[in-house]
């Protein structure tokens, strides 16, 4: 099973160390594999904090999240919530 979802970075700091860590932590709780793709870049491993960081996503960036596996839909739903909650950043 494969699902794709468009996600938008809306937190002030963009995807920095702390938010990347939250993503990897979340992805680790699911069996599905997670990938991110940003325009003009190669797809990267969503379970790798370094890959996510190197994608360089400031506030306003749109990325495609692709999950492969039986719980891929749940993973993307949770992930989308995490983006919407601005990774729990204060304010």
């Amino acid at each position, binding site marked *: 099973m494969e699902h794709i979802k468009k996600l938008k970075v809306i937190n002030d700091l963009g995807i920095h160390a702390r938010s990347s860590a939250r993503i990897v932590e979340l992805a680790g709780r699911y069996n599905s594999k997670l990938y991110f793709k940003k325009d003009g870049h190669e797809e990267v491993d969503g379970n790798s904090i370094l*890959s996510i960081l190197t994608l360089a996503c400031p506030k306003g960036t749109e990325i495609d999240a692709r999950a492969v596996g039986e719980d891929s839909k749940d993973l993307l739903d949770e992930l989308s919530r995490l983006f919407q909650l601005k990774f729990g950043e204060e304010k």
Partner: protein
Amino acid sequence: MTDNQRAENIKLQGIAVSPGIIIGKARLVDRSKQKIVYQYLIDEKDLNREVERFRNALLVTKQQIAAVKNNMPEQLKQHAFILDTHLMILDDSMVSEATTKTIVEEKINAEWALKKSVQKINKIFSEIEDEYLRDRSNDVENVAERILRNLAGKEQDSLSVINERVIIVAHNLSPADTSELNTSKIMGFITDIGGRTSHTAIMAQALEIPAVVGLESATNVISDGCLLIVDGYKGEVIINPDVNIISAFQEKQTYYDKYKSSILRLNYLPSETTDGHRVTLKANVEFFEEIAAAKDHGAEGIGLYRTEYLYLRSKEIPDEDELYKDYKQVAEIILPETVTIRTLDLGGDKILTHYQTAKEMNPALGLRAIRFCLKEPDIFKSQLRAILRASAHGNVRILFPMISGFQEFLDVKKILGEVMNDLESRKVEYDRDIKIGIMIEIPSAVTIADILAKHVDFFSIGTNDLIQYALAIDRVNEHVAFMYEPYHPAVIRMIKQTVDAARDAGIEVSLCGEMAGDPMCASILLGIGIDELSMNSGSIPLIKKIIRSISRKEAMNDLNHIMELTTAREIKKFIEKNLERFIPELKDKNTLKPPGNNSLSIGN
């Protein structure tokens, strides 16, 4: 390097990341100076064992970092995520899997394979534009270094065992290392590498210990046990200082301590001359977070609220509601005082990333500030609506930058009128009597200040740009930067002409450039009759102290004399001599001038 034991006063320049001055003994810590890693081939049959050796090292490293995290001192707990990040880097496929793969495929030892992985990661990171993200490769280095040590089977000499009053000198300190420092004993630390946004720097600030990073060769030139002075304000380290230098720094140290406590004593006193003339001292503010410090330093309001940040930090133009929320928040927290919000002053060096304008030959003379806003009325109107809506929640004034002529101001007012009508028709609340002011920072505006003064509620003189435009000096250009001269008679005359025009029209005039926070300029500006000075909040206590020690009458007499002087040098000499009369401790201006934007900064 025993030679250095005798060589005195060697000065190293690094990056100041955590303020304070310390004088103490160096303790060299053998930390992650790139050890030479050798490459050797592994026999086919031993490959599994080599992979196993690498995995073990990963496991041990993981346990060590987890242990440090569990023992983190209380004030660092909020930064615990940094160590979580390091744990994830250990598990990252670009580190663990990539290295294992390299060991097997290239039949090489784990150390060399790991080094290859790290180099690959570094290369990817080095291409990132964002400084913060680029600095994260430092985190990878920290983790890799620990793995290498564990591969070598070396005992990690934990920094927690250092129990003397020493200054730690290291090639690099990882956040984990920093977390282990016994801060009741350790005075501070200095390192060869690292940047302003490194995680180690953040930890040093949280621990409130002075730190200087990026010294490049500290571990090469400093020997264990030698005497060091670390100036966490300037980023300076002095090796084997002589008696004179030590006592100079001791004085500086005492001065800072006294200065810190004097802030608290002074901040509730009015900024009033000995003959009862009041000058309002306000703060220049860019971030909401700065407002608390501004109040602590005795600011009576925000004289300049810069609004560029929200436009710069994201790829999109911020929407009206986001701006409104920000301005409202500021207006509410500064109550009952006033906040003067300056409309977008972008252009020149800080063009919107997503608004790709043609490369300009002379950005300072190009499409910037109010010119940009008039060309993009939608962006402008959205900001004006946000400011007006915020004005319903506090005392807000609007300030338009870069006005060069009366027609331009009429164009601005027309747009403002349209926005007000729109709000009116939608019954949106705003302050109908909102005060409207303009920046006086272009020589043409000075020349017609008498015309402009009749149509605005206040002037705000922006000396940084005014000096640049009046003297035709690009401050960023190292060949002419030295000619940038606030004491130039032309500059002083222009300020006076502006203030006189404001006086005649009966409007208020403030000054918000660096001159406002320069102790040398205080008496001139007082003599000219500026109503309000707005500066970095760190400068307020000293300026207040100067104002409280002179009289308006003396300042006016001095100004009469200054107006007759013909060169900047003469003027400067006169002020210097004058100032010593009132405040003897100002004599050595250098001891009074800590650098940077930290909360202790006095001059600019």
